Each structure stands twice: as C-alpha cells, then as structure tokens.
C-alpha cells in the first residue's frame, strides 16, 4: 500500500512538472506594430494624412516589406505553376511596389476548412483574399472586426488608399451593415460591365432545320418545341433547371415577373413567386408545356450535371445555363450551341430583365490583425486601382503580354494569345491576375480567351443590344436593408421560398389543380407572414427613393 502511494505521488508530481513547461503563447497584440510603423512609413507617404488629395508613390522607398498573402490557386493554373509567385503579372506588381509577397495556397476544395483553422489558430497570414469570407466567418465582416480578427479599414482608406477610396466612399455596397469598411473588393463600372451569362441554349442545327430564327416571342418558342416533338424522336424539347438555379428569371420574365424582389410599375414592391395573376399565368403556361410533353418528365429529379449531360448527348434540345460553358460542352460533343434571345410575351411586349451589375464584384480581401505593416498592406492593395496597377492586373506585363496600339488601347501579343504549353483559358490565370481585388475591366475587353477567338466573343455578346429589353422592374441597386431587417426577412422568406418551389413542382406536374392557386397557395404564403417581409422591403425601397430624390 505504502509503495503504491509513493509511486502515485511521484507520477502526479512528474505530470505537474511537465504541464508547467508549456510552450510560450504568442498572443499577437494587434496594436503593437502601428506606433513604430507610422514613423517608418512617413518616408513613403508623400503628403500628410488629411483625406483626399493624398498620393502614394510606387515603388515604396526603403526596405522591401514582406507580406503573406492567402488566396486559392485556381485549378487551371495549378497544373502548371505551384504558386502565384510564378505568375508574371504578380512578379511585376511585386517589383513595381517594392513589396515581397509570400503566397499561401490552400488545397483545392478545402479553402473554407483551412481558413477556419487558420483563423482559430491565431497565426494568420497578413492578407486574406477569399470571396466568401463574410459567409465563412460567423457574423460576417462586422463580427470579424469586433472580435479582433481583421483590421477596420475605415481610418486607413482615406489616407493610404487614395485610388480605392473615391470608388467606395459613401457607397453602402462596399460597407459592412454598420457603415464600416472591412475589405477591398473588385470594382467595376456598371456601364462597362459584361452582359448577362445566363441564357437559354439550344442546338444550331435544330434551329436551322426548323427554319426558325432565334425564337423571339412565346408563340415562336412553343412552335419550336412542337417542331422538336414532331420531327425528332426521343428528343425532349426542354427541361426546367434545379430549384436553386439563378436562371429562373429567364422564364418568369416572360410574364413580367422577376423571380426575386422587384418593384412593379405602380411602385409597389412584389416578390416574384407571389405576384398574383402574372405568376399564375407563368404556372399555367408551364403546366401546359408539361402536358404537351415540352418539358421532360424527369425534370424534378435531374441535377445540373444530368441535364447538361443529356443536352450533350442530344436527348434534350434546350436547357438554361451559362452560354459559354454550354458552348464548349456542345463542341466537345460535336455540335454547335446556339443561345436564344430573351423571350417576350408577344411581339409588342418588352422583356423586363433582372440583371443587376453591382459595382462590387466580390473577391473580398481583408487585412488581418496579425499583419504588422497595415499601412504598407493598404497601400499595396491600393496599387490595383491605379492606372498602372490595374493595367498590369487586368492585362499582364506590358511589353510581354500586351502593348498599346496607335489609339491607346491595349492589344494582346502572341505571348498571351498563343501560349505554347497551355491554352488561353489557363494563360488567363498564369499571365494575368484574374481573381483579385482590383479595378476590373470587363471580360469582353480583357479575357485573353475571348479576345483570341472573335467567334466566342460574338457568341457571348449576341442579343446584347436587343431593343425590346429593359429593366424597369428591378429594384435599384442601392436599396439596402439593415442587418436586423435582413435577418428578419430571411427568416420569413426561407420557409416561403421552399414552399413556393415545392408548390411550383406540384402545380407543373399536375398533382394539384391550378384552381387552388388563390385559395391554397397564396393563402398559405400569406399565413407564413409574407406581408411582413414585403413591408420590410417596401420600407427599404421607399427610404431609397426618398434619399434619391433629395440628391
């Protein structure tokens, strides 16, 4: 017994001893570096920090600062380079700013997990570029600032980002819900943006055989479907996309309904799938199509991969999706794809589109509190919005990948358009910086793949200048909800959306007669507190209109 006690106490003592020698905890004090850095950085800022009118000169003078930059390596580039440090455009940017960037790339597909682990371990890279940051970190950017994970950029931007600041000043789209600035985003001028990529895509040979020129109205489309049924055995004319697809507006738009929140011609806010008579008309037409066999009987069970595969193997004549993607799919399967214009109800109607190009194009980039050179980081990220900077980001290395032509427009050289080892789709990620917070120049002007192949450029831009398309119904881009309103509305709408999609399927398949539309469908939606959600949106819209008229 005595021996036992001795041994026991000895073991306990040993254990206590070892626990005392724990590794040193490095707690990063977020404010530690700034005091010193202000002194250091006075040599790089050319004027005193007073807001507008400051300029930053590149390259930075003094020692080369090293910043760690976390971003995902695009799979197209990963087959050829192992880090963006080998990307020519990044190399030039590093040289031009005198900042050394150490890239950290997570494994493909594991970005979210790796990021959460990095944040929780406290040892974060200086800059994190991840478009879904606000949905990965619980509470979004606001919580990230409050919990000391990322730096609140509001006081840094006016002084150290003189090119980015005017683009985002007072623009709620770039702010957190409480009005602070948390990240750098890809910025585009909505007037100069690309056109909508969502299209109805079918086969060119079918259209030629049927003698139809890009069906323009509802009646022409139905005639095309009928032709497919009559002339092509075993080919289904059409199928509906999956519930979460963003292509629904292509169909609902025919009936003046946008599958989202919108404002009708009387100034009243509506939600597409509860829009009274118009939505009923849409459902009735879809039901008619289903009965006539225009819509595939399996549409509720097919996922995107299934109907894309069916389209490629010729079993379905038309699907909704990305025009560019389906064009290559069709080409690999041996036929030519053809997009359709927006379908209008009849010859005299307009199609009311929902396309909103926000100036904020994503790729949110934050500076973490582990960064010891916040001003340098801000100034570095600002470079992408200067003229020199954004030309390098968007086009690559001047002289190597592109040159100015006589009119002062950039023109790609063969280095970019005809790279020997890999196609232009890959060169896009190796010779220029595609995903990054920068001043974005639209794909149709800067994507090497498109510019190397005028046919695909034409394909993408077809139907862009359709005079019968307008956007009178969509909610203005500046209509914003506060975070409380937004949370409340989404908690109501999640259930309503699920119910609406379920009922759509049942109405179209004929399980439930359309006569119950008002009595059952609309009534149920109303009982799920839909009016509250509508009022919230209406209030936000009225607020926006009041402010807009003041300016």
């Amino acid at each position: 017994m005595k021996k036992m006690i001795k041994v026991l106490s000895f073991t306990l003592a040993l254990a206590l001893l070892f626990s005392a020698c724990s590794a040193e905890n490095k707690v990063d004090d977020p404010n530690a570096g700034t005091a010193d850095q202000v002194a250091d950085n006075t040599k790089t800022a050319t004027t005193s920090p007073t807001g507008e009118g400051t300029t930053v000169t590149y390259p930075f003078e003094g020692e080369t600062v090293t910043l760690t930059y976390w971003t995902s390596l695009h799979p197209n580039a990963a087959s050829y380079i192992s880090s963006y440090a080998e990307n020519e455009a990044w190399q030039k940017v590093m040289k031009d700013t005198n900042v050394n960037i150490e890239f950290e790339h997570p494994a493909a597909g594991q970005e979210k997990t790796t990021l959460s682990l990095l944040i929780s371990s406290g040892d974060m890279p200086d800059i994190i570029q991840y478009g879904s940051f606000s949905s990965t970190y619980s509470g979004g950017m606001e919580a990230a600032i409050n919990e000391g994970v990322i730096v609140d950029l509001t006081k840094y931007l006016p002084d150290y980002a003189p090119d980015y600041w005017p683009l985002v000043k007072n623009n709620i789209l770039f702010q957190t819900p409480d009005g602070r600035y948390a990240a750098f985003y890809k910025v585009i001028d909505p007037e100069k943006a690309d056109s909508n990529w969502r299209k109805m895509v079918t086969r060119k040979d079918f259209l030629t055989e049927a003698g139809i020129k890009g069906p323009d109205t509802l009646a022409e489309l139905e005639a095309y479907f009928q032709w497919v049924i009559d002339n092509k055995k075993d080919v289904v004319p059409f199928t509906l996309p999956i519930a979460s697809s963003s292509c629904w507006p292509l169909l609902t738009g025919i009936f003046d309904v946008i599958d989202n929140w919108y404002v009708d011609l009387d100034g009243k806010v509506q939600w597409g799938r509860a829009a009274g008579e118009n939505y009923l008309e849409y459902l009735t037409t879809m039901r008619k199509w289903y009965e006539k066999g225009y819509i595939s009987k399996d549409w509720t069970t097919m996922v995107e991969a299934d109907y894309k595969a069916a389209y490629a193997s010729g079993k379905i004549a038309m699907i909704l999706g990305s025009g560019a993607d389906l064009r290559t799919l069709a080409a690999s399967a041996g036929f030519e794809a053809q997009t359709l214009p927006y379908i209008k109800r009849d010859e005299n109607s307009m199609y009311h589109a929902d396309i909103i190009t926000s100036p904020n194009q994503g790729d949110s980039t934050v500076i973490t509190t582990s960064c010891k050179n916040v001003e340098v980081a801000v100034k570095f990220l600002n470079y992408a919005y200067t003229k020199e900077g954004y030309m390098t980001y968007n086009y690559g290395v001047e002289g190597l990948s592109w040159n100015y032509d006589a009119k002062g427009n950039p023109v790609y050289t063969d280095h970019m358009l005809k790279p020997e080892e890999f196609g232009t789709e890959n060169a896009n990620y190796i010779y220029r910086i595609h995903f990054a917070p920068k001043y974005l120049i639209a794909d149709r002007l800067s994507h090497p793949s498109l510019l190397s192949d005028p046919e695909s450029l034409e394909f993408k831009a077809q139907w862009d200048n359709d005079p019968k398309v307008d956007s009178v119904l969509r909610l203005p881009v500046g209509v914003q909800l506060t975070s409380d309103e937004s949370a409340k509305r989404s908690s109501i709408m999640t259930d309503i959306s699920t119910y609406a999609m379920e009922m759509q399927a049942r109405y179209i398949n004929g399980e439930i007669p359309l006569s119950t539309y008002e009595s059952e469908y609309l009534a149920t939606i109303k009982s799920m507190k839909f009016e509250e959600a509508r009022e919230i949106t209406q209030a936000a819209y009225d607020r926006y209109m009041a402010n807009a008229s003041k300016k």
Partner: protein
Amino acid sequence: MIESRSFAERLFDIINVMLIGTLSLVFIYPLYYCLMASFSEPANVLSNIGLYWRPLGFSLDGYKVVFNNPNIINGYINTTINLVIGTSFCMLMTTIGAYALSRRNLYFKRIITFFVVFTMYFGGGLIPTYLVVKGVGLYNSRWALILPSAISTWNLIVLKTGFQRVPLSLNESAVIDGANDFTILFRIMIPVSKATIAVITLFYAVSYWNSWFAASIYLRERKLYPLQLVLREILISNTVANTSGVIDANMSESSLMGELIRYCSIIVSTVPILCIYPFVQKYFVKGIMMGSIKG
C-alpha cells in the same frame, strides 16, 4: 481416401458456393464498372445509364489527362514515402504499446487502458487537434501526417488481445532462458502473431494510401502533396466550368471529362493496392499460432 458425402452435405456445399459466388460478383462488379468506364469515350460515359460489360468506345483520354498532370509523379512518390515510413513507425508504436498493455503485471494497467479506449469514442475535434499539431511545430512537415495518427486505438486493442492469447508458457520459458521484454516481444510475440500483425499492417498501409485530409490542412508546400490530394485537385479542375466559351485544343479539359476523370482516378489509386494484396493474403488464411509449439 474418398469420403462419401451425404446428400445434405452436398446440397449445403452447392448453396454455399452459389451464395458466396453471387456475393463476390456483387463486390467485384463496381470495380469492374470503374475499369470499363475509365477506358471509355468521355461523351459515352456522361450519357450512359446502365451497366457496363465492355468499354463504350475505347479511349485513353482520361488517363492522358490524369498522367499529364506534373504533380502526379510527385504524388505517387510522396504517398509511397509516407506509407513506408508511416507504416513502419505505426507498427513499431502499436506493437510496443500492445505488448505493454497485454502484460498482466503492468502498473496502472486498468487506468491506462481506460484512457486509451476513451480516445476511441471521444476526440477533441478538428480545431483543437490542429492547434496541438501546430503548437508542437509539425506544421508543413511530413511528420504532421505520421506522428499524430501513429497509433490507431482499434488496432492497438486487436493486437493486445492477440498477444494476450499467446500462452504464458512461451513467455515463462523465455524468461528462464534469460530474455528481457524486448527480446520476448521481437523474438517470440511477433513471429507468433504474424497473421494479426499482417492484417494491422495492411490496415495502416491502406489508410496511409487513402489519406488526403490531414495533408490538406497541415501541408502548405505543394510538392509534399500525397497522391489522393493531387487526384482530388485534378478532379476539381476538370469540373470547373469554362467561363469564356472558347473552343480550342485545351477546351476538352472541361465538363465532359469530369465523369471520366473520376473513374480514371479511382483506378489509378486502387490498382497499386490491389497488386500488393495477394502477397499479404497468405497470412490471413493461415491460423494465428502457426509455427510454434502449443501446449
């Protein structure tokens, strides 16, 4: 001597063989399906619904894409190194641990066994594990894949039970001849439990061959990536949508190939293991106590 078997026995044999034969077919067919699909034309793979009996249009396109990736050779090398070092290390740790736990006169045996078994049911979770591995300094090194998972509790217990079944008389006779514990372990216990050791080695080897998650969170340098991670990246890059719609030589690396690449990567990663298995199989068939004096 030819035994005459009764009708019942023969009927039993026939039914037995039929049942097991059907089961084996059911087990093997998916692998056969993958093999046939991997040699087919990409378009046919996408549109086919149904069973394969032969490749639909012979084509090596899928394999070309997989092997053209420069990281694949690296992946194979890394996985092989991890496997060899990892499995030997694991086996060393597991046998020592199992031997110690199987001795009757180990102090605190009950408590230690309890803690060990406890880890089988409960774990800290991803983030604490990550913090521990990082704090110890294993981040971005090969050892992060080997050390934290060096002992699998399940295998440890199986081996411990195996050691416990070895008759004490073998032990005692060795002690009389002047053997210490290490000698007993390596000269007597392990040779006697060859079958169990072989099974556990195979388990560890296969888990190292299949591992990708630990590598994805602990490794930063791409040249340390194991095979499965490389294959995963190939798969992802071939299902990424083509954003520009350009039709050129490289466009085939797009949606059509996605399905085909899946099958090719399954074959590429399974075939080496399939080749090694027959060599290990003889240990499973023979009994536990082969080659020793019983009694």
